[in-house]
């Protein structure tokens, strides 16, 4: 093919490249700068231990079976003065295996007591796969990164809870 036919397309394409030369970069130098994920981003699950009643709903609904819960019953003081002492469940073990987790969010949605929350944090990679099993201490530590609920778009009729 003769050269003069090739030239216009080439110049047009090079023009695009040239224009981008003067535009700011869109990439982020990761370890030094961080990108902020949106508030709703499903990064890691935080556990508010005092809200958990060991009802096992999250573990049953998990599609991957990656939540391990153990609990036992304890006596608690009555709610009102003079009432019967109550029996409540105490949480012994609450582990989420992030090596299995699919980040679907079903556990957060089914939790009837608001004990689980999504946070957009993402920096918890581990060199050893076994360390991806977060216990309740580690999950509880994520609580401080949970963002406030976001306002909804105009025309929305309140947040809808799943089911």
């Amino acid at each position, binding site marked *: 093919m003769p050269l003069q036919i090739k030239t216009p397309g080439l110049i047009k394409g090079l023009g695009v490249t040239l224009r981008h030369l003067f535009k700011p970069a869109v990439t982020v130098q990761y370890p030094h700068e961080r990108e902020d994920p949106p508030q709703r981003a499903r990064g890691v699950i935080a556990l508010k231990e005092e809200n958990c*009643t*060991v*009802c*096992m*709903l999250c*573990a*049953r*609904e*998990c599609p991957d*079976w990656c*939540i*391990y*819960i*153990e*609990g*036992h*019953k*304890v*006596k608690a003081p009555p709610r009102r003065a003079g009432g019967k002492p*109550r*029996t*409540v*469940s105490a949480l012994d073990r609450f582990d989420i295996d992030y090596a299995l987790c699919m980040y679907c969010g079903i556990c957060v949605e089914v939790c*009837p*007591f608001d004990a689980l929350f999504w946070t957009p944090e993402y920096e918890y990679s581990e060199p050893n796969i076994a360390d991806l099993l977060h216990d309740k201490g580690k999950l509880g530590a994520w609580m401080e990164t949970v963002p406030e609920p976001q306002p909804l778009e105009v025309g929305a009729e309140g947040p809808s*809870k799943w*089911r």
Partner: protein
Amino acid sequence: MPDDDLTDAEEPAAAEEPAAADEPAAEEPAILPEHVGMLAKLQADLGDALVEAVSNHGDLVVRVRNDAWHAAALAARSRLDCEYLSFISGIDWTSRPDPPNWDPDAPSSPVQPKEVTYGAAGSDGRFQVFAVVESTDDKIQVILKTDVDEADPHVASWTDVYPGADWHERECWEMFGVRFDGHPSLRHIYLPGEFEGHPLRKDFPLLSREVKPWPGLVDVEAMPGGAGEEAGDETAEAVAEGGE
């Protein structure tokens, strides 16, 4: 839902949900008016090999005799201009044998009912092969079904009618063990060549769900001394309230 043999089984489930109660199930005719012409054209070619036909959620479902499977493809292609093959697949209507001892009422443990029921247009036995063909000109589609013998599952191949049937039939053979007579090379498509068994048959166990216990089996340990019997049940009550 047209009145086939599923309607009886539908009652208890429908009672639970208000949304489904006002579904116009009863007044919907078995064959929608727009399907009558299509069905007549197929009937003309297939005759009594056309066993049953029904309109299901706006689609025409036609069940043909096993020996007329190839003729059905030809009829759909020539009479209805259905030149486009969507897919060919199979289904095993039996229930899974010995389901793990899960709580059948728990939402996350889908234990299927024990009794064997058949879907739209019915079935004679365990295996069925079904396919969807479409006409891109007339914007119509037909779902074709045929029964397959359980002991010796085989049916005619469509590869000479629709070249795309090749891979779909290989998949169906691999997953259900249905032999397609006249297929040029029935060999494994997804699984390694030495794989034994037909994974989508209901009696083929999904090992990952058999070896690990369902987390729903775990429960809160009772208090030593058996005092936890009448109590505990704050949790259960709260769960019941929880979802509103």
